[in-house]
């Protein structure tokens, strides 16, 4: 039976509490997103990572602000863990001008370059190339930055996964591939779309070292990614880390989840909820009072962010037309010749606007 481990002390204890705090912040954020989505304040599509928080928290705890990550369509946790502010995040989800992307992106497209977050991605597999490129840039600029790619099991059936694993391995790039194997790609069971149990086998095919970890255990993820980061920073090349995890909510908010039993979800979460797990791992090193305070602080932070979002304006409609080209806000820039604001202004032959140069057809 489970033997009682000694409670972690010193730096390890601090790490555990930091991981716990991050996981709870992510959980509170996502439970809040669910609530406000269902309440109609968050539009569009949103994918939650509840159950998978240990991967985001454990991975990003190894990273510096100037390291890069590429995220997925399920990216709220990665974004928060990489250091984006709760306010900027929530305001973006509420489609406000004060959001990190000024309301252009929303849940699936959040990006925060100021903290090295190269973007959530509505296109599955969109991040592989970006990470390889960021890693190659670090090498050429002779920095010790690393780049981390988050992705799901489904994404590993796409070509860019294979192309970039090969490329990062053969060029020995400081890249870390963090797989969140949550057993499903959308509504399709992973067992039906691949013949192998451990995707990490695929890394071996490209000559890349790999680790397989319990993705519910924040320490385990932290340690495995920590080794990978150390290897990458010291010129040892890329690593593949497969985190065995589980998505406790539907593929998207509103998913009727006909493809799995409710009991399956309950069983996994009862046994493995990463927050409960971390609380247990910390044992006596964390009092119940401290644990509850972490939750209370996260809830306060989230409530503040919601208030901030609600009091923020929506973006100006004209913002739709800007940002496609450098300098496109400057009058007279040639991009204006073919940009579509014309739609509103172009009435050359309206009777009271005519300049006399038209109308020769009459």
């Amino acid at each position, binding site marked *: 039976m489970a033997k009682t481990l000694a409670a972690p002390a010193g730096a390890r204890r601090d790490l555990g509490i930091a991981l716990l705090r991050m996981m709870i912040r992510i959980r509170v954020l996502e439970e809040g997103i669910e609530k406000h989505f269902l309440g109609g304040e968050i539009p569009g599509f949103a994918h939650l990572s509840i159950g998978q928080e240990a991967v985001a928290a454990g991975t990003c705890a190894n990273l510096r602000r100037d390291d890069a990550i590429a995220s997925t369509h399920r990216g709220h946790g990665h974004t928060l863990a990489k250091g984006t502010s709760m306010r900027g995040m929530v305001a973006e989800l509420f489609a406000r001008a004060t959001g990190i992307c000024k309301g*252009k992106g929303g849940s699936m497209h959040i990006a925060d370059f100021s903290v090295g977050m190269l973007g959530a991605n*509505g296109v599955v597999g969109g991040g592989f190339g970006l990470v390889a490129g960021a890693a190659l840039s670090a090498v050429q600029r002779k920095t010790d930055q690393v780049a981390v790619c988050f992705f799901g099991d489904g994404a590993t059936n796409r070509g*860019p996964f294979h192309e970039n694993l090969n490329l990062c391995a053969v060029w020995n790039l400081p890249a870390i591939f963090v797989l969140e194997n949550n057993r499903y790609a959308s509504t399709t069971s992973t067992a039906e779309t691949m013949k192998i149990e451990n995707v990490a086998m695929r890394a071996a095919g490209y000559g890349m070292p790999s680790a397989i970890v319990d993705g519910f255990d924040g320490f385990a993820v932290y340690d495995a990614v920590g080794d990978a980061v150390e290897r990458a920073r010291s010129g040892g090349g890329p690593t593949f880390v497969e985190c065995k995890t589980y998505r406790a909510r539907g593929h998207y908010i509103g998913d009727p989840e006909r493809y799995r039993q409710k009991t399956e979800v309950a069983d996994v979460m009862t046994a493995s909820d990463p927050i409960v797990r971390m609380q247990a791992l910390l044992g006596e090193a964390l009092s119940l009072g401290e644990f509850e305070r972490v939750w209370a602080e996260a809830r306060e932070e989230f409530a503040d962010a919601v208030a901030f979002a609600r009091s923020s304006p929506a973006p100006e409609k004209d913002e739709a037309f800007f940002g*496609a080209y450098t300098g496109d806000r400057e009058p007279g820039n040639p991009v204006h010749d073919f*940009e*579509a604001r014309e739609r509103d202004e172009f009435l050359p032959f309206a009777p009271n606007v005519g300049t006399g140069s038209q109308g020769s057809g009459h």
Partner: protein
Amino acid sequence: MTATTQQQTGTTVMTNVEAVRTTLHDALVRDDRVLIMGEDVGARGNVFLITKGFLEEFGPERIVDTPLAEASIVGVAIGMAMEGLRPIAEIQFADFIYPAFNQIVGEAAKTRYRSNGDYTCPMVIRTPYGGGVRGALSHSVSIEALFYHVPGLTILAPSTPADIKGLLNAAIECPDPVLFLEHKKTYRSVKGEVPGGYYTIPIGKADVKKAGTDVTVVSYGYNAHQALDAANRLESDGVSVEVIDLRSIRPMDKTTILDSVRKTRKLLIIHEDNKFGGIGAEISAMVAEEALFDLDAPVRRLAGPDVPAMGYALPLEEEFLISTDEMVQAMRDMAKF
């Protein structure tokens, strides 16, 4: 969602999404070479529940849940089509078709030409496209112009349930590859009568939705419905607008467009896809070549702005999309000329 098999006689009222569903269903029943492949088409029954229950009825060999691999969904469908089957490949959202671009442009479109007709590619690629559902950067795109340039491809974008049925049947029958575009905003918002029994609508034939004498409006997809609304509103003001729903984007129905333009002497083209290098550019060039001296006004295009995506916040999405009011205004301005 309603019954899967449509009655043979009489008409049934259904939505666009139901029309896609019943037409696919009846094709599977009619022809055992027909099969459907794509992501989440099996147990889930497609994101919009179009294939719900098909897996149970037709089995996993004909309702194929694929891995997440668009290039291969299309690539495999091409191979099956070359070797005697009639695959209908689904790209879950049009925004995800780009990995398959190489297969579509490099293989499917060239198969007949390079084999001098010995091999054909009787394949349909279906995909929901278009915005207005807050899908932002990656669930809102229009892709027709990207494929429009490619000889060998047929591109259809019907806007009503009856046209969906007739053209989807025609696409499945067609010996060449067809890109079949379904505007997702019309899926549940558009309803109409659909004749019973099997029928096809000829590919390359536009539909004059409303006859008029003052301005010709050419559109397709969701915009075609708005254009018709706008034209009807103007009727009481004495402005007579002829509304053409293209239905087939490539081949283009030159005859219907030119006949109309020669009558009204004014042409307004409306599409949600970006303006620059869009479908409207080709239509206006065609009209300039064939009927310039029949025009009384410059051709006008009302189209999506030239920015790479629709924003997420409502004002950004609305500003990208063309409102019916804008259409009314444009039609009125043209008529005054």
